[in-house]
């Protein structure tokens, strides 16, 4: 059965159907459709953070800085040089990727694990300070406004609906690339370092170099997500680089479940919708959110998606002999879809 060979499909196909039709029923006004755009952008940022967490088994606390950096690069190009946002969508990931390469090289030579988390936190805060202080370039605390939307054949992608489908398409592209990348030689190298760095280097995987490139790739991806944010919400400010968004991405990843392609997508949807529903509680909103978060961590430490997957496996009867843990280590497709 095909579903069995493509473990992501049972979730992906219905999720895509819901995502494609959501603007038709639940999300019918522009405010709600703006939430959909936010879900897509957070999902992309979450996928990128999860590349570091799930695939590399590492942690970056400076990830929001790359997100904000990508947003600034694209916004700045459009505002100061009149460059088309399309070029910005390319330039943002390239710039974020290059900075990621440099910082990855500095940070990953010796540090791993929790040390890396704190080191990247330091970089993130430094970037935030610069964004806040370098007024002539970054606009200081107020940031930059009037960032133009992208246009296609003379038609501006300005409405929430159009931008949502545009971003959704890109998100699907990202999911596709991430899925294929996992099976590639590079993806396997990264995974093997995650599993066992000594063994990986003894069989010829250049551990530090692979990790630096993987880190840079994740930075490029999150920079791209940041550019998408800038051209939709049409402003950038130093907060985009700060801890608040860092926590949001972290929540998106851990809520959905790390190490799975669909986890961060689900996590982004849950995060945006739940915090929206809690809006009625006004100042109690984030307090309640903290409690909800603690509860989720307590009762679903692996995230919501793996819990759902367990249920789905039971229903479709496609459980593996190795159980849940084996599935965590396995790749979509590596279980025989190509060998068979």
């Amino acid at each position: 059965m095909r579903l069995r060979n493509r473990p992501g499909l049972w979730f992906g196909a219905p999720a895509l159907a819901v995502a494609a039709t959501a603007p038709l029923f639940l999300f019918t006004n522009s405010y709600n459709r703006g939430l959909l755009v936010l879900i897509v952008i957070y999902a992309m940022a979450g996928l990128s953070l999860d590349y570091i967490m799930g695939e590399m088994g590492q942690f970056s606390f400076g990830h929001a800085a790359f997100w904000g950096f990508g947003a600034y690069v694209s916004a700045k190009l459009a505002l100061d040089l009149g460059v088309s946002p399309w070029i910005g969508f390319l330039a943002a990931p390239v710039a974020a990727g290059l900075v990621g390469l440099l910082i990855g090289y500095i940070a990953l030579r010796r540090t791993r694990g929790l040390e890396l988390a704190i080191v990247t936190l330091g970089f993130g805060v430094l970037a935030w300070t610069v964004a806040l202080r370098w007024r002539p370039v970054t606009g200081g605390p107020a940031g930059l406004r009037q960032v133009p939307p992208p246009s296609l054949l003379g038609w501006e992608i300005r409405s929430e609906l159009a931008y949502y489908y545009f971003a959704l398409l890109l998100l699907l592209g990202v999911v596709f690339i991430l899925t294929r990348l996992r099976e590639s030689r590079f993806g396997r190298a990264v995974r093997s370092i995650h599993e066992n760095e000594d063994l990986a280097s003894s069989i010829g995987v250049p551990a530090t170099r692979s990790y630096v490139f993987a880190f840079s790739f994740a930075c490029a991806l999150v920079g791209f997500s940041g550019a998408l944010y800038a051209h939709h919400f049409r402003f950038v400010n130093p907060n985009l680089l700060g801890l608040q968004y860092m926590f949001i991405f972290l929540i998106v990843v851990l809520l959905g479940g790390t190490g799975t392609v669909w986890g961060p997508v689900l996590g982004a949807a849950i995060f945006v919708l739940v915090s929206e529903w809690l809006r009625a509680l006004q100042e109690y909103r984030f307090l309640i959110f903290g409690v909800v978060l603690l509860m989720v961590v307590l009762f679903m430490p692996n995230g919501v998606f793996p819990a759902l997957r367990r249920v789905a496996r039971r229903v479709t009867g496609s459980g593996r002999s190795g159980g849940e843990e084996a599935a965590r280590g396995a790749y979509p497709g590596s279980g025989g879809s190509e060998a068979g």
Partner: protein
Amino acid sequence: MNWDILGQQIWNGLLNGSIYVIFAAGLSLVFGVMRVINMAHGELTMLGAMLLFTVTSVMGLSYFAGAALVVVMMALAGFLVNRVTVRPFLGHSELVVILSTVALSFILLNGSLVVWGSTPKGVDKPFNEVLQVGGVYMTTAQILLVGVCFTAVLALYLVLTRTKLGKMTRATGQNLLGARLIGINTTAVYDATLIIASGLAALAGVLIVLISAASPNLGQPLLITGFAVVIVAGMGNVGGAVAVGLFLGLTEALFGQYVSTFYRQGYLYVVMIIVLLLRPQGLFGRR
């Protein structure tokens, strides 16, 4: 060169540095013993400052009685921090513990905003005479701050090096399994570590109000400064954190005076990056 300004900046740096020392020592202790990044450490300090405001201004306690009460209360709360946000997750990945402490900091910060609002609150200082030593102005409250910090560091040093508890925390930090095998109750060690660290965090909070106002927003910037200190010193090295905290406090003030007020906030992170480039394990770290 105006020597009075230099002296004044050294004094100001010493004040900030004392706070960094107390704060970073607790952060580093938790990391060194438990391999846990406590993202709520800054909010514990904030809570110390806010509670002090409440017990002095609302309940009418004196500064000293209030400070003692708050530090003891917060130290005991450290037990709860361990049992609610750390211990249940130790079997899982290190990241889950980060998330649970992030959740705790969310709760503490937003809970405090609900209770106290975001306006900074002044706390009455026990005494606040201005003294002039040479050309340097200092207040008696500031001298109290520095004195308490040094006493606290000395006490921490004695606890960690001279007591059985200190030996047990070091053994646990070096090798959890080994510590268990030789009969150390590591759960109790973890409880004690978070009790000490929370007490230190709250102490930083009750001291901060001697030099600035109490506000629910003071936790996050302090947490970030604390991390810079801990990285430069070497993760988990408490003694190093003390030396580096003091050094960075001093040089940060001098940087602000003589190089750039504007980028003063960035100074710590630039130092951090230079240290990372030249000595990734930190100044006092061993690899």
